[in-house]
């Protein structure tokens, strides 16, 4: 097949892998084509913080040599971008913050290391909400990312640069992290596929920590098939992360063919309350009917504590954030205030200058809920409610295999629309946060349109059921073509 490098960006990871294997094009040609695409289409979205052009071309040449020598890793020659909170050796790793504006990581995170060892070519690092704290990408020190469906709109967050670059067909796949919805919500708002695995499924080593009991790495891609391919490389035990779990990694790609016939899908009453935009709700209901048409059984379930997910999360996550971000003190790395009077002044001014508004607010919130006199009333109480929410899920999974519903209450919203009231912004994550609290895997796939913009269907399964939710998503993508839709200006 003759290959026109002008259309390589339209292909999925799986299609590109096929093309490389068949010798239709080299990794060098592919890398050059996508670097040109970043150049022509990336800046209008502000999706990248760093483009690693030179290193990418060198990695592509290495990949081509390895292929010629018959040493082909599972991602040989395939392009990838990383959210800018994965430490990447010798590359700027900013976390979207002034605090780390000049931080060049001295080591690779496990995610970066595994993807790179599998032969992938790193094209750059993507923009994000500062320290992954945000749902709209507006908290980035490097400015907001724009949604390729309409550049006046937010792509969601915090993995907004990853989502926008995949949705705009600039790259076929990106890594992301999800603490309360930061992969699934931007995937929904930009019309792509995003999966957050079970807590402990993917190593957190070298991921800049936000809330350590909630953070998990995952991927943003154009299809469930691509997500399966990439997740298989990332997942598995890592001795360097004591919370990574020693569970065998199934063959996610091999598992995709499992039909949905007989699958018991839970539909949560509380997910379809008046807060859900009507058109979004209709798109999700249509998707559920389509799955029912394939032989899945829809079962109504009640999760009485699920409405408390958002306040629970906004106690627990800031508490952990205030502890994790205490490492940024202007001494060992990162920003440092000029001419400090004394050590206390050095700490306070460094942190006051280095952190943005939302990060400061979360540090303050976390410090407050952990402080003497308030710990029991807020932090301990929230950890107990977290247990209740987790129990709601465990009870539900006695009766159903997966839970399906909306990923976000609305479609993409305008940049600047929700920045006045933090609580309003927090409610964007109302359907995604509970999976983090309970450590469950969740994914979002595009399932329709509302006001012409993508709507996401979320699937959440029991611990370590990535295979099941990926197979369900893949089967849905065999009978629908929402995941193939591309924003008009980026075809």
């Amino acid at each position, binding site marked *: 097949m003759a290959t026109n490098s002008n259309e390589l960006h339209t292909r999925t990871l799986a299609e590109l892998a096929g093309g490389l294997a068949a010798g239709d094009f080299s990794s060098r040609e592919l890398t050059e084509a996508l670097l040109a695409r970043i150049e022509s289409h990336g800046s209008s979205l502000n999706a990248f913080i760093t483009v690693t052009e030179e290193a990418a071309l060198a990695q592509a040449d290495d990949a081509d040599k390895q292929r010629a020598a018959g040493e082909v890793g599972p991602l040989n020659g395939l392009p990838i971008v990383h959210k800018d909170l994965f430490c990447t050796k010798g590359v700027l790793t900013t976390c979207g913050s002034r605090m780390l504006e000049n931080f*060049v990581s001295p080591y690779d995170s496990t995610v970066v290391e595994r993807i790179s060892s599998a032969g992938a070519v790193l094209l750059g690092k993507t923009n994000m909400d500062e320290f992954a704290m945000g749902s709209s990408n507006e908290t980035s020190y490097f400015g907001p990312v724009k949604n390729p469906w309409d550049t006046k709109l937010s792509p969601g967050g915090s993995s907004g640069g990853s989502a926008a670059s995949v949705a705009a067909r600039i790259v076929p796949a990106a890594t992301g992290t999800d603490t309360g919805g930061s992969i699934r919500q931007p995937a929904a708002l930009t019309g792509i596929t995003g999966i957050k695995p079970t807590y402990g499924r993917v190593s957190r080593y070298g991921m800049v920590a936000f809330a350590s009991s909630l953070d998990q790495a995952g991927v943003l891609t154009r299809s469930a098939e691509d997500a399966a391919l990439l997740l298989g490389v990332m997942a598995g035990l890592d001795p360097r992360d004591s919370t990574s779990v020693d569970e065998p990694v199934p063959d996610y790609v091999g598992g995709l063919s499992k039909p949905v016939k007989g699958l018991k899908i839970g539909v949560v009453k509380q997910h379809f309350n008046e*807060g859900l935009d009507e058109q979004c709700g209709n798109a999700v209901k249509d998707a559920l009917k389509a799955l029912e048409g394939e032989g899945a059984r829809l079962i109504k379930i009640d999760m009485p504590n699920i409405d*408390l997910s958002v306040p629970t999360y906004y106690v627990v996550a800031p508490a952990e954030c205030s502890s994790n971000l205490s490492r940024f003190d202007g001494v060992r790395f990162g920003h440092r205030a000029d001419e400090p009077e*004394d050590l206390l002044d050095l700490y306070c001014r460094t942190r006051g200058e280095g952190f943005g508004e939302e990060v400061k607010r979360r540090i303050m919130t976390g410090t407050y809920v952990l402080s003497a006199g308030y710990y029991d009333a807020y932090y301990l109480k929230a950890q107990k409610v977290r247990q209740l929410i987790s129990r709601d899920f465990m009870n539900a999974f006695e009766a159903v295999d997966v839970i399906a519903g909306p990923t976000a209450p609305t479609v993409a919203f305008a940049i600047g629309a929700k920045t006045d009231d933090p609580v309003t912004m927090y409610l964007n994550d109302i359907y995604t946060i509970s999976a983090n609290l309970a450590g469950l895997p969740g994914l979002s796939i595009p399932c329709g349109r509302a006001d012409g913009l993508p709507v996401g269907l979320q699937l959440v399964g029991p611990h370590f059921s990535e295979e099941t939710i990926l197979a369900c998503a893949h089967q849905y993508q065999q009978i629908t073509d929402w995941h193939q839709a591309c924003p008009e200006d980026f075809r």
Partner: protein
Amino acid sequence: MLPLGLRGLWSGPDLTENPVSLSKEQVQHIAMLARLQLEDGEFDDMIDKLSRIVDFFDQLQAAPTNDVLPMAHPLNMSQRLRADVVTESNERDLIQGNAPSTEDGYYLVPKVIE
């Protein structure tokens, strides 16, 4: 009022009106605990928004949590231990390349002891 589309997502009071207010002294105290210098212009906004957030937490109080253990780990698992052996090599010079100020392998900070 909250924007359309987000109303009715929770059953608590209208969060955007008359939140329980934290005092300026309280907020200053928290900022000191957090080692965060807030500029004068940042204080009013921080007091307002932090008050709204704390107000939002109040709906947790009604949840029935008697006899419920706090959740310390999302999988309710205990953490794996490893042997206490050296696993990393000495990369001080590489690591100190990111430090704002060093001398002879030490990190420099303002003088602490007179």
